[in-house]
């Protein structure tokens, strides 16, 4: 009896086959319980490509794209959350003024060129304090009440940016705008508080989506409705079940998007997401390790996997460096030398991981950093670490604490490895406390904790200004790692005032070098992962910093189904 697939696909499994397999399942369950195959040995390279070039065929219209997603947006209000749950589709219902290139237009995974989205062009004054954006004409809001397809104008941008500055999680960024002028219907002029060469980049971040005033004024918030100018109309958002996006027939970029419907199935369990992919209920998913891709390949031999290489890591050991003993740079350096990060890559991430650094390397060099590049304090040298700690006045080690939230299972292994190595190499006793997210976050963000913490920097905005000034300047509210270094302060301010891209790279490198030298943030390895897709997907590649299944959701605009 054929079984009916989610999209009308018939996959024949005869009654005889079914009974045979049902019998086998019972045996299989038992067998699996008794013997679990060993994990793949550490491997240094991935057999999967890092980049999937755009299809050369003519794009086909139609079809339904489905993805099983771990994330569920708590609310639809872009003023109130920067969660990936929202931005896995907010960039499809709404546009920004500027955007990063789509994979289809990119020369490779690290191409970070800017393109116009709702703005056709933009210029800045010589001092980078006034930014003028010329808007695309003829853009209409989606034909959904109460907007009903009215024209998008400069007044909408002004209203939206002022609302972002007034309240919510984006206040800090939008308060940098001193004033907004709209000299005509299609021109927006931003007056910045201080010179900033990265204004266009900040407005290209996935979170800078433009929403209409009608919803905010009618509802008082944007929690329940989302209407934009984007390629997809939000047809349904049923919490914990699914998000359904329908092609916007009046989209200003004529002929796009290609896919008629995009369904995001909220699937919290990883095994279920993989099962959804195996049974073709999901067209693409994210997996962490090479062995997982290999396991999927057994049932789906024609899958297409992109080996995604992170250009930065979100997690590292944060030290209370404004208090003893971590206010002594020798202690921080000793810690860095006592932890074998390569071992974590080889064991925890099966060789498919990166050593860890906080500023995306693409902002200061072309190639991925090597271990040597981090400098002397980042090499695994336990004997020297011990000596340095003794010089700092702790010949017999000391006791400290570390709290963390397990974002993913590998993290616990990493925490335990760090604990073991600090004990073995420095006689430092680390008392670990594993917390639930809210407890962890509340303690982490109040910046009053002592000892150590498995710190993070969030991934919603990844421009160079975000990764340097916003996360490292001593006065920034995002300075979670409590960096307090006058040189870094000076360099990060200088960077946002430097227009020349070459000079920007030089300054960024200086910031990074200083960070490593001072061990201001002790980065830990992180996985690279894979985007795994059904063979009929086209133009779905992820680019650096923008995963198609996450904050890079606008890529879906150019995805098409070859079937």
């Amino acid at each position, binding site marked *: 009896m054929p*079984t009916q697939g*989610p999209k009308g696909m018939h996959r024949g*499994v005869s009654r005889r086959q*079914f009974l045979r*397999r049902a019998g*086998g*399942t019972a045996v*299989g*369950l038992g067998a*699996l319980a008794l013997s679990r195959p060993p994990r793949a040995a550490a491997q240094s390279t991935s057999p999967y490509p890092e980049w999937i070039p755009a299809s050369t065929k003519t794009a086909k219209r139609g079809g339904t794209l489905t993805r*099983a997603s771990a994330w569920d947006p*708590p*609310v639809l209000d872009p003023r*109130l*959350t*920067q*969660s990936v749950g929202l931005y896995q589709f907010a960039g499809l219902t709404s546009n920004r003024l500027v955007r990063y290139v789509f994979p289809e237009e990119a020369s490779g995974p690290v191409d970070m060129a800017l393109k116009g989205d709702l703005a056709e062009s933009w210029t800045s004054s010589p001092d980078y304090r006034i930014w003028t954006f010329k808007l695309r004409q003829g853009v209409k809001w989606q034909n959904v009440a109460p907007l009903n397809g009215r024209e998008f104008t400069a007044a909408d941008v002004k209203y939206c940016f002022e609302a972002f500055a007034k*309240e*919510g*999680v*984006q*206040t*800090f*960024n939008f308060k940098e705008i001193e004033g907004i002028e709209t000299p005509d219907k299609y021109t927006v002029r931003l007056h910045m508080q201080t010179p900033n060469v990265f204004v266009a980049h900040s407005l290209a971040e996935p979170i800078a989506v433009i929403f209409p005033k009608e919803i905010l004024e009618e509802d008082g*918030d944007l*929690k*329940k409705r989302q209407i934009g100018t984007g390629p997809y109309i939000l047809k349904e958002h*049923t*919490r*914990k*079940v*699914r998000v359904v996006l329908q092609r916007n027939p009046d989209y200003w970029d004529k002929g796009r998007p290609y896919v008629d419907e995009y369904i995001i*199935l*909220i*699937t*919290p*369990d990883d*095994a*279920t997401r*993989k*099962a*959804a992919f*195996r*049974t073709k*209920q*999901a067209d693409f998913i994210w997996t962490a390790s090479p062995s997982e891709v290999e396991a999927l390949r*057994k*049932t789906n031999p024609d899958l297409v996997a992109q080996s995604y290489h992170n250009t930065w890591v979100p997690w590292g050991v944060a030290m209370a460096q404004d208090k003893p003993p971590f206010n002594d740079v020798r202690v921080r350096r000793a810690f860095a030398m006592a932890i074998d990060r390569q071992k974590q890559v080889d064991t925890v991430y099966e060789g498919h991981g990166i050593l860890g650094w906080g500023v995306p390397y693409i902002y200061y060099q072309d190639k991925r950093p090597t271990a040597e590049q981090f400098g002397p304090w980042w090499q695994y040298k336990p004997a020297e670490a011990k000596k340095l700690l003794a010089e700092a006045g702790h010949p017999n080690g000391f006791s400290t604490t570390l709290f963390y939230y397990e974002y993913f299972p590998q993290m616990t292994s990493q925490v335990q490895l760090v604990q073991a190595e600090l004990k073995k190499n420095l006689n430092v006793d680390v008392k670990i406390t594993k917390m639930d*997210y*809210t*407890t962890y*976050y*509340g*303690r982490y*963000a109040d910046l009053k904790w002592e000892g150590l913490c498995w710190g993070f920097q*969030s991934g*919603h905005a990844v421009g160079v200004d975000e990764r340097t000034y916003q996360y490292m300047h001593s006065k*920034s*509210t*995002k300075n979670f790692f409590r960096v307090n270094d006058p040189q870094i302060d000076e360099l990060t301010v200088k960077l946002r005032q430097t227009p020349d891209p070459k000079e920007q790279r030089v300054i960024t490198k200086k910031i990074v070098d200083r960070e490593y030298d001072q061990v201001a943030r002790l980065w830990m390895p992180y996985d690279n992962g894979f985007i795994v897709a059904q063979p009929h997907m086209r133009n779905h590649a992820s680019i650096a910093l923008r995963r198609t299944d996450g904050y890079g959701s606008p890529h879906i605009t150019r995805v098409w189904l070859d079937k």
Partner: protein
Amino acid sequence: MYKYVLRRIFLAVPVLLLSSLIVFGLMRVMPGDALTVLMGESGNIGEKELAKVRKDLRLDLPYYQQYGLWLWQMVSLRPGDSLLTGEPIAVSLGKAIPVTLELAALAMILGLALAIPIGVLSATRQDTASDYAGRVVAVSGLSFPDFWLGTLVITFAAIWFHWIPPIGYTSLWDSPWRNLQQFLLPAAVLGFRLSAATMRMTRSTVLEVLREDYVRTAWAKGLGGRIVVYKHALKNALIPVVTVVGGQLGVLLAGAVVIETIFALPGMGRLTVEAIQYRDYPVVQTNVMLVAAILVSLNLAVDLTYAWLDPRIRYR
């Protein structure tokens, strides 16, 4: 009988009140709150802004006032809105309850359909191959945790049959067939777990009853085996079984949390877990109170069932 029921209802009040105090207290003891999670992640929120929103949501009130306010909302059956989503809790529950109810009912039906016949079979064929097989099934049900069994079932279904239930939730009224596909597998997993204890209890009580004098008399009268076992023995053996089943309803609700997560069903379990993670106080408190009220009612229902099973029982 009526007096008994009234007395039980009256006694339920302090139980519920104590539950309300415990859940309210526990939620406040846990560090962090919904605002920290929702708005703090960006690192962009100042203390002043957080304080303003806290005031808007009345989270700045003293605990006793917050408790009093919430108690009044519960008594007046207006539990308020979710701090996280702003959705009225009654609406959230309206969506989640049918899912968990259907899952629990189906699991219970499947569990009992498995447990009673196997339990009786084990008892009537004591120490035979069938008995051993039944006992293995029961012990397996007790030993396999929900998360393990659920994960294996969904993974093997995908690998071996290239089929898993359609992800998501479709209402029974919108598409009964699709709904059944979505619920059958999770209910079977949950039901299997539930059936274990019931199976063992059925076996032991039926064994005990089969040794009673009146059963021997029934055999001596020449009654057929089915009549003796199912009409005379089983009914009398069911009182302890019903007690076990009633007691397992709490286990069933706990198991639903895991099963709903694995099979992506938007029920009470996921609603509560998410609310705990986000410190969505009103949602957690309301859900816990609802579950407490359901358990109290079910216990009463179980007690009342005794009289139906054994007419000698009288309530005073």
